[in-house]
């Protein structure tokens, strides 16, 4: 079992013929993802050929792609100035899951997306995220596929490479994953920790959750309250940026301590209070999960 994506997910890649779209279109197909269409305005009616010689039809719009191929999820590799519009097109065309990989969308464009996606009932993952993966079924993202292993740990994270690090630790200890979701590092996101925790809560294939947060905002605190009230499955959490100076943006647009708020210490305190197993060493995430599952952890 898994959440959000599985082997029935039919993917349209927006911006498939660009360099990022092509590279990751290849990566997804290699992993076995069912990539059924590309959308590039102006290139409708052509076909894109993968590195392995798989031909994927390209359409002018998501509307055409959905009608012709029955696509049910989209992934967006479109530059920042146009990405929000692409996400809205996917939503308007009826796609219920849209992953926006693009980094660099303006904050107000991200604000404009929220009410639009609410109206269409679309779940957006990102922007500025690595995407999500259900191991051995569907990779809807840019992560290296081989580090994952099928299993029953749900993973949710605001980071990219730190997510890979955590996944790799789990896999090396024999702990497979149900689904790994990278929600992204921007200040305004389509999906937050609580959204994903709800999916994991309902998924019978997820036994425990690993959560990778970072400084900035209050998403971890909100997750802590929700976990405390609802989640019976064990959660292991790490927060990045324990040594970050206040007032500085640490790479991610959303990773900033403002007005003394959004520190790792506050987040850890809230999570501990909610009964979450907190890991302060980034190299210990896998081991902590194993200890919890073996009944040795908290």
């Amino acid at each position, binding site marked *: 079992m898994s959440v959000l994506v599985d082997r029935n997910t039919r993917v349209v890649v927006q911006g498939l013929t660009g360099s990022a779209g092509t590279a990751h279109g290849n990566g997804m197909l290699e992993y076995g993802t069912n990539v059924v269409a590309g959308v590039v305005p102006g290139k409708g009616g052509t076909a894109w050929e993968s590195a392995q010689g798989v031909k994927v039809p390209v359409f002018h719009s998501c509307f055409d792609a959905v009608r012709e191929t029955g696509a049910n999820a989209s992934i967006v590799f479109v530059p920042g100035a146009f990405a929000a519009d692409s996400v809205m097109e996917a939503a308007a065309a009826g796609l219920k899951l849209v992953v926006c990989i693009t980094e660099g969308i303006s904050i107000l464009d991200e604000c404009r997306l929220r009410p639009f996606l609410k109206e269409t009932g679309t779940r957006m993952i990102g922007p500025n995220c690595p995407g999500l993966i259900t191991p051995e079924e569907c990779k809807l993202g840019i992560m290296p596929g081989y580090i994952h292993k099928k299993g029953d740990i749900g993973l949710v994270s605001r*980071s990219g490479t730190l997510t890979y690090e955590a996944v790799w630790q789990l896999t090396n200890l024999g702990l497979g994953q149900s689904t790994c979701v990278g929600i992204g590092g921007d200040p305004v996101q389509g999906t937050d920790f609580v959204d994903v925790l709800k999916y994991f809560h309902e998924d019978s294939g997820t036994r425990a959750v690993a959560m990778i947060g970072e400084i900035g905002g209050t998403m971890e605190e909100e997750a802590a309250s929700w976990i405390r009230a609802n989640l019976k499955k064990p959660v292991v959490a790490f927060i990045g940026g324990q040594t970050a100076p206040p007032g500085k943006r640490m790479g991610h647009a959303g990773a900033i301590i403002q007005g003394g708020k959004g520190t790792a210490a506050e987040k850890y305190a809230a999570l501990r209070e909610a009964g979450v197993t907190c890991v302060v060493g980034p190299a210990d995430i896998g081991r902590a999960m194993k200890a919890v599952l073996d009944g040795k952890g908290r």
Partner: protein
Amino acid sequence: MNLHEYQAKELLAKYGVPVCPGRVAETPEQAAEAFRALGVPLAAVKSQIHAGGRGKGKVYEKDLTTLRIDRGVALVRNVEEARSVAAKILGGVLVTKQTGPQGRTVRKVYVEAGCEVDRELYLGCVLDRKAGKPVFMVSRQGGMEIEEVAARDPNAIVKEPLDVGYGLRPFQGRRLAYVLGFGGETLGQFVKMAASLARMVVERDLSLLEINPLVVTKTGNLLALDAKIGVDDRALELQKQSDLEAMRDVHEEDPVEREAASHGLNYVTMDGNIGCLVNGAGLAMATMDIVKQAGGQPANFLDVGGGATKEMVTAAFKILCRNSGVKAILINIFGGILRCDLLAQGIVEAVREVQVKVPVVVRLEGNQNEKGREILGSSGLKILPAKDMGEAAKKAVEAAGLTR
């Protein structure tokens, strides 16, 4: 990116928000001329730096000990005073609560006509990340930092969310006006001003707007006495606000961070002894954390991103090696998109070119990591390999001679 007060007021004036007449000056003579041109009995000479607390700050010589003047904002009553106060402030280093002990060099002053203040209020607009929209905030406690008000009495702050597609609705403006105690003509003036500010936030991609204090003059008029504006860096990168981009003051930015950015590197200067080179922001933060846990101090945050080239790695090494505080360099790479063999090649060439003198510890994982390790191993360079990030941090701290 932040604007100076005088730039913020220029923008406010364009949106019809009342501000006092003022002129910017870069020399004492210009300040004297500005006072003369204003033709008022009283003016303020205000230091222009990107930090608050200027009024209570102190201006020092470059040695940071010899005091020039005990305030960053001073009232002047004649041309001579304007000239002499500006001479003390300009070129001095202003240290305030927000600048840190190193202070900021003052290169410009704003000479602004004085006004008769009846009441000081607060108005701000910041992003509410959870709601996914900007939110207007007002408080009757003007002149105080909003964080301080929030900590002391959160109920003293009233908020109204901004619908970016529509703007601030009249009822929202009225609600804020009543909270601030306005009635009659001032109420009408405020509602109009709030709507105009909302339009400015949306049209100009502002990430921060603060009018503190917003004053009511003795004649019952509203006036933005101090203003702070931040512009969304993303919008600037997308070249949406070129006239605001032209207001950028590079002196207010960390030169090393700026240089790093020109190479596509995300860098933040810190005070430490282990230089860090990492791909990905989350992993870069976690690497800093583990360095600290191993007994070292991270000297920087550095994210080379997913598409690091040899040129970027070389530029990164140059920046790290210039910092004399760096006693060892830790490279932590988890190749997803990034290929470890290409990166290893870049490291080898960079270490040769830059003639790195401090120990370099490298942890490579992910895409083509075995090839990458081979390249490092056969390079003949003194590069210490590590199998995971825990070991890498430990080795870096040891190599730097910092072992506890």
